[in-house]
């Protein structure tokens, strides 16, 4: 149905998680989807199922040795000393049963989202399980085993020769895995806005990382100061992203919508609120219509306050993807079901109250530094895009 949005999900996608006290908890997907449902945002939108990615899909960007290692790990058939060489079996990326199947499903979900949009079966699509942007060619990293965006981009390049894809990553962490996979490729523009690597994992994403060879200028990085608030994040985005995407001229926008820049996120040091998570998808949506006939695929990503932040941020994302109004109140049904299970008090409103998030003492200084960084990107990186 042309013009309609697709939500690509099935419950099997919720098997990607590391168990126990691990911060990457697939319960956040359940909380999000049930909030969407209870808000009435899924009424006309049945979930679209997807097939797991094949070994052939995965090896477009991963080494076969690594894929075999993940498969063996999930069967309990690999030695821990060998696994560690591939980033597996560490505190961040512990092995879990059938991990290959779970990870390949996530990749398949994002790949299917992209294909739906490229076929014209949907104007926009969302797969919130995706966004595992740290995974490297032969290494799991930062809770990410397979790189869904990397595989989807590589496959689309095969299926649509000459396609130009803009990858826009607003997770609080640098989108390093995707950046390195396409660092020399002028047909893939990667833009990452993130907390500076001086303060946070993975420690990269400086302005001077701008691509190599033919791809010089096609990796755009905007490192933000810790404690950056909504206003400064939005100003930075608006300074850099529209100009970068207009210069590039994409055929598809793939966005990574990690919501860990929120003030409540336990893993990062940024100070955003739900206002950012309404603004970003709306802005990307407008750019998709302006530049590429609306072709836009949105994924999830980081987000570790799974009770108060993730469900609301990604419900806002889905509302933007599906052109629906975002209601004001959290439905009673949802609160009733989850209140008792949540270790923290749950918000009553879909949007944060700005009064709960007063400006920090150094806000002007922080915003000024971010403005200078954005200007540096405008001067030194964007002119290289042809």
């Amino acid at each position, binding site marked *: 149905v042309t013009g309609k949005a697709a939500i690509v999900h099935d419950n099997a996608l919720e098997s990607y998680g590391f168990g126990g006290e691990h911060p990457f908890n697939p319960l956040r997907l359940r909380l999000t989807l049930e909030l969407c449902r209870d808000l009435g945002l899924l009424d006309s939108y049945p979930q679209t199922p997807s097939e797991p990615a094949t070994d052939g899909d995965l090896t477009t960007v991963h080494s076969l040795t690594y894929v075999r290692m993940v498969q063996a790990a999930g069967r309990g058939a690999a030695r821990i000393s060998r696994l*560690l060489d591939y980033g597996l079996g560490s505190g961040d990326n512990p092995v879990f049963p059938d991990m290959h199947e779970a990870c390949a499903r996530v990749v398949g979900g994002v790949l299917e989202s992209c294909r739906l949009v490229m076929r014209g079966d949907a104007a926009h699509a969302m797969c919130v399980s995706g966004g595992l942007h740290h995974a490297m060619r032969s290494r799991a990293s930062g809770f990410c085993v397979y790189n869904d965006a990397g595989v989807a981009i590589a496959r689309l390049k095969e299926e649509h020769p000459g396609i130009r894809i803009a990858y826009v990553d607003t997770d609080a962490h640098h989108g390093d895995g995707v950046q390195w996979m396409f660092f020399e490729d002028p047909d893939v523009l990667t833009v990452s806005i993130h907390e500076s690597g001086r303060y946070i994992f993975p*420690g990269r994403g400086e302005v001077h990382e701008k691509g190599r060879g033919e791809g010089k200028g096609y990796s755009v990085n905007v490192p933000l100061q810790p404690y950056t608030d909504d206003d400064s994040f939005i100003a930075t985005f608006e300074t850099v992203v529209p100009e970068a995407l207009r210069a590039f001229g994409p055929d598809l926008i793939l966005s990574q919508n990690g919501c860990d820049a929120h003030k409540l996120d336990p893993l990062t040091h940024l100070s955003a609120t739900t206002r950012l998570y309404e603004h970003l998808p709306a802005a990307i949506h407008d750019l998709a219509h302006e530049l590429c006939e609306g072709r836009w695929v949105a994924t999830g990503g980081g987000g570790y306050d799974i009770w108060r932040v993730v469900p609301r941020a990604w419900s806002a994302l889905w509302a933007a993807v599906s052109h629906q109004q975002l209601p004001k109140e959290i439905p009673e049904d949802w609160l009733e079901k989850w209140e008792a299970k949540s270790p923290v008090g749950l918000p009553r409103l879909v949007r944060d109250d700005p009064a709960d998030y007063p400006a920090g003492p150094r806000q002007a200084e922080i915003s000024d530094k971010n403005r200078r960084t954005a200007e540096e990107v405008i001067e030194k990186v964007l002119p290289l895009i042809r």
Partner: protein
Amino acid sequence: MLQVKDSMAREVTTLSPGDTAGDALALCRERRIRHLPVLEDGSLVGIVSDRDLRSATPAFGDSARAAALAEVRVGDVMAREVVTARPDDPIDTAANAMREERINCLPVLEGDDLVGIVTSSDVMESLVYLLGAHEPGSRMEIVVPDRPGTLAGVAGLIGELGVNIVSVVTGPRQVGEPPSRVAVFRVDTINPTHAAGVLEKAGYTVLWPPRP
């Protein structure tokens, strides 16, 4: 590991004292280098930088430039007192020599033979590798009392969490603070907050990451 021989360039472009400034500058341009050792009968007799050569010749646009480039000899402008390094010197010794002498390059001698050259860029590169700054990781800054065993204590707690340490360096705290050192760890985890909590519980002061 971390010796001059691990970082130095082994193919060295050299000059003779009789070469002209013009030839020498052309070599700098072609090979994108700034320092050229000068050999006479196989022995190191001097070193010359592109800056030495430029300041010894008239600027671009000056009509006397072409003549000077053909006339000035390397032997006239080179530094004759050369600070050198040996292949098995620690890289930090070489770095300190460059810092103290305010120079950017050391020819590397094995006996009397020139076997390499090490520059401040090479030192910078080894610093990046030393700190693991090219690998994914999170930075942690922990105050450790200047006493035996405290660094091992911190490292042990991090290890028990299954977190790999990519690199560690320690340095003195600012003047005026109690005698202690700051250990900067680069750890292979996206979630150093957890480790920070464990360390604080064990009595260490964590300067970064901040606790929620």
